[in-house]
């Protein structure tokens, strides 16, 4: 622990957020019609703290859906390229859910690593993550089955727990501690700590357990060629909404946008659920049908990423469960595969 936990009375939250807004961009849950979205806020009164989760995941702040990598101006026998300058201003992801904070850890592994991605690294270095524990998880949530928890502080710089009239704040990093300089906090007392532990236990206990009987990764390797994938993929429309809303999905495309010889090389989100994702110029496609693409998504999340990055590509946020237009449920897929429900 970097420093001792603090508490913040709820009527002082706006003062804290105003301090943050003075020097930083603040992204926070905000009501938009009947949705709650994570957005850059102009006014602290827009921030909502009583919500289940934001419709989209916060990954877009660090990995935008469309991002300019460089501009180019080409001519006969010459080309000039310029990379947009990085920003200086700090930013805070405020009030995101623990699952989404944990999802950022996977992005960190993918975009960091041996060949660091400068666009991601620039934004990540300027970002402080403040998460808010889930006291009443949604029935579609299953964070505990993927290694997280409704009140886990993993991936956060500060972690807020709602105690009713005040928040308990756990300090997880120096970056987080630096935000607590405003004179609005108190040291956490025994009562606050005890209440926080009780709420955490209740939140965890309220989640329907999703216990996999066997090692899912091992089963996936054994079942790669099983006809069961055809059954599972039968209703999938290949729309890709699961990948767009997923806090850990990070596949992208690179393309040129512009008129003629001047324009921008851009990066845009892409999806393994789309047929063109792997189609080669010759016309050959190693994943020609929905079956192979559905299998790739599950294998990538629960076999390949645990092997290469040490964590699954799923944090149990439940967005793909609630938003799938044909009600495919990744939890049922996990259970079915782990139990070895095969057709062969």
């Amino acid at each position, binding site marked *: 622990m970097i420093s001792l936990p603090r508490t913040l009375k709820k009527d002082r939250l706006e003062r804290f957020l105003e301090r943050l807004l003075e020097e930083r961009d603040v992204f926070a849950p905000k009501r938009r019609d009947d949705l709650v979205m994570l957005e850059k806020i102009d006014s602290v009164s827009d921030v909502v703290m009583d919500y289940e989760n934001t419709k989209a995941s916060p990954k877009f702040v660090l990995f935008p859906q469309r991002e300019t*990598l*460089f501009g*180019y101006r*080409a001519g*006969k*026998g*010459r*080309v000039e*390229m310029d*990379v947009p300058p990085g920003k200086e201003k700090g930013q805070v992801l405020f009030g995101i859910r623990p699952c989404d904070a944990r999802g950022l850890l996977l992005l960190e592994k*993918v*975009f960091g*690593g041996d*060949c*660091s*991605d*400068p*666009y991601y690294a620039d934004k990540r270095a300027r970002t402080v993550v403040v998460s808010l524990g889930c006291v009443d998880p949604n029935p579609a949530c299953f964070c505990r089955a993927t290694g997280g928890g409704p009140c886990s502080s993993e991936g956060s710089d500060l972690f807020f727990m709602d105690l009713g009239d005040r928040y308990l704040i756990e300090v997880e990093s120096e970056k987080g501690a630096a935000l607590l300089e405003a004179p609005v906090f108190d040291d956490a007392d025994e009562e606050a700590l005890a209440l926080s532990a009780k709420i955490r236990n209740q939140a965890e206990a309220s989640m329907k357990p999703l216990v996999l009987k066997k090692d899912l990764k091992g089963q996936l*390797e054994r079942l*790669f*060629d099983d006809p069961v994938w055809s059954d599972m993929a039968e209703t999938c429309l290949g729309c890709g909404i699961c990948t767009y809303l997923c806090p850990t999905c*990070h*596949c*992208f*495309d*690179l*393309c*040129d946008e*512009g008129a*003629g*010889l*001047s*324009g921008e*090389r851009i*990066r845009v989100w*892409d999806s*393994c659920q789309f047929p063109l*994702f*792997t*189609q*080669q*110029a*010759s016309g*050959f496609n*190693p994943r020609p049908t929905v079956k192979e693409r559905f299998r*790739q998504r599950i*294998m*990538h999340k629960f*076999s*390949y990423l645990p*092997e*290469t990055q040490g964590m699954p590509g799923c944090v149990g946020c439940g967005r793909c469960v609630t938003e799938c237009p044909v009600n495919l449920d990744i939890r049922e897929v996990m259970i079915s595969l782990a139990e070895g429900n095969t057709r062969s």
Partner: protein
Amino acid sequence: MKNPYVPFPMRIEEILVETEDETIKTFELSFVDKEEGERFAYTPGQFAEISVFGKGEAPFGMASTPTLPGRLAFSVSRIGVVTGALHQMERGEVVGVRGPLGNGYPLETFKGRNLVLIGGGFGFSTLRSLTNFILHESNRGAYGNFTVIYGARKPGLLLYKKDLEAWQERGDVDLHLTVDQGENGWQGHVGFVPDVTRSVAPAPKDAYAVVCGPPAMIHFTLPVLKELGFGDGNILLSLEMRMKCGIGKCGRCNVGSKYVCSDGPVFSQAELLRLTAEAHG
């Protein structure tokens, strides 16, 4: 650290039409920034992403040899948007290049061993790079017997004719050309690559086989190598997948848990057998 997404400019110095149907051209490029050229070090088997500004990027294996520094060569088959635009380009024009990408052939492992290179069609470009590297006077002594088998559908589709003639003149490489169909007074061998492999490949002891070509050629060549006694660890393949970033991030070129762009494109058959069935479907 250098931004891995920004290409460096290279000028088109030469364009060679390789095949009689004119669908494959080799582009020889020079570095616009000479210092960039001096820093650029690569291994045969690696690849690069070539940008045609306004059209996008596509990956190509290096067809040149690092023993001739300052220039890179890429053979381009006219198939899609980027390759179509490249085929329209002329000498003096500038493209972008990002690389070198991928792992390349394990040159250290090959040292002191006998080698057989088995290539077919367009897949021969990285084997041309490897052949010219090994045949360079500063390298040839480090490797044992050297056999190159190269097949095409017909004589007019064989690439790198000048190189092939030069290699045929040499005594230190055993070159076997073959075509599926002979024509135009073709005096050479007619037959399929796997059959040629069966009759001319070296003994498997202390030998490596390097295979690059179309899926059907690979499919029928692997059992021949096995039958000859080559172990899975001594057979090297160069895989092809649609690639974009080239640095293991964009997520599209995986075969099982490996990314072809950053873990490969060169894998041993033993490594591929450990991956999921996708690798050997």
